[in-house]
């Protein structure tokens, strides 16, 4: 069974939700405190949503220096799945594991509602089980959700069907070149059961779990 680390920074708050949703599809998901330095024994890692270090200075800026981040970088370099959701996405950008940065939503308001995203790249650890072109309903929950990438190198994995926050290229999720590091702004774990209104996010989490199983530990 694949074993996924869910990193907890001071101020993270979606870690229990990610763990719940991953366990519901049969993965082993364990919390790892940000002061840990060792991720051996894990097949993949998720940086969950929340407000690491209060989002002070810039979202993700302080979290990037947490001791655990060297191990996360090592995982990324080893080709293992590394997924950042919402605040986790912001941290991956600050850590330069993904290009660009996330700035305040165009309308300067926090947005919490389900949005539609189109999966445009299925060659990543988060989207491999999804049909290309599939449109998924996933809850967005962010203030700094507008992705901007002056380098223009971001590989867009999912696009908002409507321009909800001003993201460049309507990017809702982006990946590194190898497709093993993915940042996604909407929350797959929040749409992982019908009783929550949608189970579309499950497809993404299943892709992640499958990807961790493909890679020899």
């Amino acid at each position, binding site marked *: 069974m694949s074993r996924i680390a869910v990193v907890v920074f001071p101020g993270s708050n979606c870690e229990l939700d990610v763990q719940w949703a991953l366990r519901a599809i049969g993965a082993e998901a364990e919390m790892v405190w940000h002061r840990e330095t060792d991720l051996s024994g894990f097949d993949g890692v998720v940086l969950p949503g929340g407000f690491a270090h209060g989002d002070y200075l810039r979202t993700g800026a302080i979290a990037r220096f947490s001791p655990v981040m060297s191990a996360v970088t090592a995982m990324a370099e080893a080709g293992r799945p590394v997924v950042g959701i919402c605040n986790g996405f912001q941290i991956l950008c600050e850590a330069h594991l993904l290009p660009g940065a996330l700035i305040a939503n165009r309308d300067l*308001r926090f947005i919490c509602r389900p949005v539609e995203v189109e999966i445009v790249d299925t060659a990543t650890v988060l989207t491999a089980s999804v049909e290309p072109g599939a449109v998924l309903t996933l809850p967005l929950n962010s203030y700094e959700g507008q992705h901007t990438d002056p380098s223009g190198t971001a590989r867009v994995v999912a696009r908002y069907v409507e321009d909800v926050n001003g993201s460049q290229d309507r990017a809702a999720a982006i990946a590194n070149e190898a497709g093993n590091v993915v940042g996604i702004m909407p929350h797959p774990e929040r749409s992982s059961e019908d009783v929550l209104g949608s189970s579309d996010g499950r497809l993404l989490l299943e892709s992640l779990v499958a990807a961790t199983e493909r890679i020899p530990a």
Partner: protein
Amino acid sequence: MTTDLAPEEDALTESGDTGGEDEDTLHRRLGLTDAEYQRIVEILGREPRPAELAMYSVMWSEHCSYKSSRVHLGRFPTEAPWVVVGPGENAGVIDLGDGWLAAFRIESHNHPSYVEPYQGAATGVGGILRDVFTMGARPIALWDQIRFGPLDNPKNRYLFSGVVSGIAGYGNAVGVPTVGGEIAFEECYSGNPLVNVMCLGILRRDQLVLGTAGKPGNVAMLLGAATGRDGIGGASILASASFDEESATKRPSVQVGDPFEEKKLIEACLELYQKDLVVGVQDLGAAGLSCAAAEPAARAGVGMELDLDTVHVREPQMTAPELLMSESQERMMAFVEPSKVDDVLAVAAKWEIAASVVGRVTDGSRLVVRHQGEVVADIPAASLTEEAPRYDRPLGEPAWMEDLWSNRFKHMTAPEIGPTLLRLLDDPSIASAAWVYEQYDHMLFLNTIVGPGNDGNLLRIKGTEKAIAVSTDGNGRLCYLDPRRGAARIVYEAALNVAMTGARPRAVVDNLNFGNPEKPEVMWQFRETVEGISEACESLGIPIVGGNVSFYNETDGLDIYPTPVVGLVGVADPYPKHPPRLDRARAGMDLWLAGPVDATDLAGSSFEKVVYGHVGGRPRAADGTAARAAIDLAVALVSEELSPCLHDVSDGGLAVAVAEIAIASGVGVTFEYADWRHLFSEDPHRFVFVADPAHRGRIEELGAACRATLTRIGEVGGEAIVFTRGTRTDAVDLDEATTTYRRALPRRLS
């Protein structure tokens, strides 16, 4: 810009020495009356020292002592077999079965939100969270009830958007979802907005913690943020006096919330409880350290020694009174057995929060405070709490009630149905609140199975079959017209909202927002309200387990409408797997009305207020028997999965209730009525629901079994909201209704 300290603060900043200061002036400036001062002298057998006077002034303030309300609050029914903790602790606690408990409380932050809307609302959220996790519970949801003056005034827009951002900014970042609430706009809130917030947490029975100091020998530890000069003479004094433009400039130092610190504090405290490292916990809110020392000592019947030199501070050179009165946020006091201090420090270090030992529980009953080697206070702990003054203030029915009641609006002609409906849908108090709740994280923790935009909310407890339902309701206009009837009606409305999620009502917390208690009219409104809430709760068999009183909501002598707000908690076990929601009506379904179809009473209705600007007449009283029948029927319909969508008839009456179903579900509705007044009456305890025609038989059986009146009034389908009466038809295009309803707030705010 210079610092604008309140005058009382100047007096206390100049160290312990009040030389040259007239003592008499000082106590008055601190909000104590001469008689109260005399009482202090009697208790102590001497003149109080400055630090002592500071402590009495905050603890005996209206906000902390409930001195004007206490004699009336005793009227509340507070008992039921499932009550674990009733009023008196930081939050009420009820039993949900199988070892699960729910802790909840509601509180106001009205004046601070007027002074600084973002921080005022944010720190209101922080404060109510602490009341709940103090009990050992993990806070799982928040609800906000906010009221402002009309949005055509820029100041009100500024206050409204600032408050919403503050609730979002704090609630989202601290990681507790805000899953529902209420917004209302009335002229009377222009100079005095109301910002109430309710919080609910869950815990296992063995994790319950009380605000007690425990045994002599225990150590008092202060956890969390450093202490600064925040809000000195703030929440407590601010909330205990009337407001005018002048006091807005004499405001005390504004408190700034730090949701990040609070998040760490929540996690650290929950770990302390889980490891059984604390005997008791008390949050530091209004009255800060004074309250956090006095209350737990008084509850446990012990004494306490505090050493102010060990308090970690943000600003240098704070005086003893300042340290004792500071309302710095995100602090908790824990009472710990000496052998466990190191373990507590280790947990605090792990979560990166500061912790220090600041005192010791002693034999006897005195609270002794030292600062820089000197005793600055030595007083009986209970004299700050139990011996606080109580006033049975004079009360009398306002002379204006007779006029109000006889001032019934005479409707000369029937209104045009379509335009009237659109007008109501465009009213900010009725229109979609999505502009507000989409700024709040309302999904965190994956519990929210009926979220904002519906009547009640339903939160599952993961890993169980249980769900907790909550509805918060208030209606100032109705309570102004008749406080007793109005207050009873909001309790019934909340109970029905909870029932429509499939849950049984279990307990209530209340927030009583009133004007100046020194006016007999206001005290009469208060007493009537307490009666109304009590009667309704008794009729429903549910207790009141906690609440809050906010007086002095007046500006320049004008009192707000009496505005009680209730938060009603229910339990569904098992919870519905296809929970009913407003957006689940489908073409081909029947539209039903539970309760009388021929309601004509319009007194206090949105129809009269919004369409004619009229507020008058005496609203109808609720009928307990009919209310219980409606509740039974709603619970039965949901638990048998007969209806996917139910909605109560409240603001805007039947026409708006039906339109809201159509708008949420994106499908038209056609229905019949006999008299136009039936469309806009807000007669209590009625609801509409939709159901598959195949269920007609069973639904009628249930109606009969519950003794509820039931009428099939129409059907779902088409692209318009169509009203028919005989051969007459009025139709409102669904798209137009939808746009009006959804754009009402955004268009006024951008």
